[in-house]
């Protein structure tokens, strides 16, 4: 009976396929992560990333917070038609976050957030079936966000800020038709954006936040191309040089967040978020090579383009915090994060799946001003089909991920 019940619950939950995913790394606050990464929390400066307007409600004139995660993800691919399977052997990723907020006047706060909201580190191995699509990829985008908030009334604040982004991308793949391989490396690629927020505290018990982070278009220019190809092809019309340059644009999706936190009692609160990501902007992955004519564009052989056609996606989050004492806090959360990737355009360089996650964590108040937080997330990426006719790539994929994070927050005065 219990099995049937839990299976039913599982089925119901699975039915609520919900979204966000792609290569978004939602780990910008250790405490928040333990509560399904919900956003309506103003204990410390970490709110600068989630909702700049929340700075006005931090119970300290100066707040500094920082934390780091260790993320281990694994994706598994299989093809029933070929009875083939492969899995990734990814290195541990260390997304980090740092934020500071300062109340310059009673109503005006300024803040800074530095984080890695987008990233991916995937290694499928050199010889796997999808090697001509990707063997290895590492993407990372740093966001540096100066922000400002203005408290209009004692229950309503607005805020906004600027985003300076810098990204790096390394990817490797095979070029089997000439028994070769290619490595692309780009670093320091810039992008710009802004964020806006409104934070409400209509009653002591209820916090409501609305925030929007714009799309940030990363423009990689003069990246390096390293081609490993048979010597007889070097210098031919198609492969002018083994060290070429490339340009590419990668859109990091805009994100709209609605979050709320409700204090059920002095020691117990529940939070919930809805994130909506504008991944629709990511239509294709296009590389423009400077010299080599290794592209697939019929009008310009130096351009290589393959469709991605991401769709807008959402995530639903629910979390809770229970403090049995002033010093200790227990946190728990659950979220659904839908993949923005369609079956027809699924590509192993972004092994995206619909994810269900359980989060948890502890917080301890070391001193009156200093908090230490520990959190963990386990997510299961549901099995999905790959039906990519464009690449002639078919199969199924599933994934899982463990994340552990540790952070410190100092609310100075």
């Amino acid at each position, binding site marked *: 009976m219990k099995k049937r019940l839990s299976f039913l619950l599982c089925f119901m939950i699975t039915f609520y396929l919900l979204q966000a995913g792609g290569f978004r790394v939602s780990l910008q606050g250790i405490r928040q992560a333990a509560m399904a990464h919900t956003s309506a929390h103003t204990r410390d400066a970490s709110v600068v990333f989630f909702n700049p307007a929340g700075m006005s409600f931090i119970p300290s004139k100066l707040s500094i917070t920082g934390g780091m995660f260790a993320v281990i993800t694994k994706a598994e691919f299989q093809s029933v038609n070929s009875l083939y399977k492969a899995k990734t052997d990814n290195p541990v990723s260390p997304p980090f976050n740092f934020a500071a907020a300062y109340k310059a006047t009673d109503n005006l706060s300024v803040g800074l957030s530095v984080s890695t909201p987008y990233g991916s580190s995937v290694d499928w191995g050199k010889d796997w079936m999808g090697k001509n699509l990707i063997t290895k990829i590492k993407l990372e985008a740093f966001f540096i966000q100066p922000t400002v908030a203005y408290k209009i009334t004692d229950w309503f604040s607005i805020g906004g800020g600027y985003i300076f982004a810098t990204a790096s991308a390394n990817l490797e793949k095979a070029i089997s038709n000439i*028994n070769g391989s290619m490595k692309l490396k780009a670093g320091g690629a810039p992008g710009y954006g802004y964020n806006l927020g409104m934070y409400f505290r209509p009653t002591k018990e209820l916090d409501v936040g609305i925030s929007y982070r714009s799309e940030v278009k990363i423009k990689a220019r003069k990246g390096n191309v390293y081609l490993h190809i048979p010597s007889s092809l070097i210098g031919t019309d198609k492969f002018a040089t083994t060290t070429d340059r490339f340009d590419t644009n990668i859109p990091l999706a805009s994100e709209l967040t609605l979050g709320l936190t409700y204090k059920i009692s002095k020691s117990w609160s529940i939070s919930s978020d809805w994130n909506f990501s504008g991944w629709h902007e990511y239509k294709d992955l296009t590389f423009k090579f400077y010299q080599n004519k290794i592209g697939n564009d019929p009008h310009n052989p130096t351009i290589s383009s393959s469709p991605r056609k991401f769709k807008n996606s959402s995530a639903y989050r629910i979390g809770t915090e229970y403090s049995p004492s002033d010093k200790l806090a227990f946190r728990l959360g659950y979220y659904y994060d839908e993949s923005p990737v369609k079956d027809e355009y699924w590509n192993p360089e972004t092994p995206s799946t619909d994810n269900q996650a359980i989060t948890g964590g502890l917080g301890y108040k070391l001193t009156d001003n200093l908090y230490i937080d520990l959190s963990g997330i386990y997510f299961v990426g549901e099995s999905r089909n790959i039906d990519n006719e464009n690449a002639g790539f078919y199969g199924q994929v599933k994934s899982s991920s463990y994340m552990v994070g540790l952070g410190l927050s100092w609310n100075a005065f």
Partner: protein
Amino acid sequence: MKKIIYPFLFSFLTIIFSCNNDFDGEGNVSDIEVNSGEANFSRYIALGGSLTSGFKDGALYIEGQKQSYPAIIAEQMKRVGGGMFKIPYMEDELGGIPFLGISNKLSLEIVNGGLSPTVAQGKGITTLTNIYSQGPYQNMGVPGAKSYHLISLGYGDPTNLPLGAANPYFIRFASSPNTSILEDAMKQDPTFFSLWIGYNDILGYAMSGGDGSNTLTSVSTFQTTYNTLLSKLVSKGAKGIVASIPNVTASPFFTTVPYNPLTPQNLTKTNPNQIKELNNAFESLNNVFDFLQHPERKIKYSSTQANPLLIKDKDLVDLKSQIKMVLISKGVSTNQAELMGTLYGQSRQATGEDFIALTALRSIAQINSKAISEGIPSSLAVNGVTYPLIDSWVLTAKEREKTNLATMQFNNIIKNLSDQYNLAFFDANALINDFNKNSGLNFNGVNYTSQFITGGAFSLDGIYFTSRGYAIIANGFIKAINKKYKSNLPYVDPNAYQGIKYP
């Protein structure tokens, strides 16, 4: 509080961990069992011609045999009771049989600063020594074998070689001089067979440009032969698969050289006045054609557009004597008039309906040495420009129609007989045509087209496939076998096999 927390926590964890994260659908690949369905793969024999033997790059050699489509299929069958699959390997990776003048495989070499298919260096060590004692062999594909050769007794008899009634490749592994390929196959009591035959019947005709040296097998011969083959093969209860044959014009051998490669730039490379001189040289001949009311035979070179090759078309009315007479009446010497008549009696400029053989590439716009040795002046001995391209280098529109018609007729026979004998059918003709489509075919991120060399599907001879192409074909066979016999033999990844090797 505990009363709320612990059940909450417990149900959360139960929910999450009872959501088992197996793959949807048929579940995890490691749990799937390969089964042979209604078929029995314990003794699989492959019959056919060059395509079945693994012939590629203009030769049969070990690597090609190891990666032939029957070897690939047999490898997959091993997972479900498939037995031994022996191959009558050649003695080396060169494939040449010097004793018979069979040359080594082609390989890409740098020639004059560019990559070109060249006969591989070295001396082939394969002889006609019979290796049957190390057999019997399950891949019975014999390069060059036409349909009726599979049932010819004595096809493996060395004494029949000079008569053209034996095949060196079969001589090597025949059980006796008077056996036939079919008999040797039946001796092994196969439980499953593949038969892909008929391509060599058409190919010989097409590759010799229909010059008469190699005739098309008649439809009735093909029908009776194919029926004989199938009735014998199923006679002891074996199941099997047959495949339609490809269109010869789907291969780069016929689609690489354009009918009009003589661009003004090419023609005036060494002599800026070349085009003017050509038109002057043909002026009187063109006047003769006008007079004879055959303006379509006129030979004209444009200085603005790409010009078609000059070809010989034996289906044209031979105007040799008329040309001679008119020229003599205009005061041209008898010898000269005779020469012009002989050279241009059945010539015309090619059109887009004509297909030029890959082997003509090296000779186009070169001096024809045979013509020179016959005393023809060099100005009239330039292949494809002033000296009409010989028959064997051109598949004219008419010849192509004949080829396509025969292919279609053979394929109808193959399909009908496969239905009649209740066998699996693989439409290889359709698959191979797909390589010709603009975008080709994609497998795991690699694009395959019918482009010569760069396309990846066809080997350096322009006719037969690379091992990757054969792997794609093997998947086609496997798909059709699975469909008919409800087995689930797994596909292979074509990119894991050998493609074109670049030095």
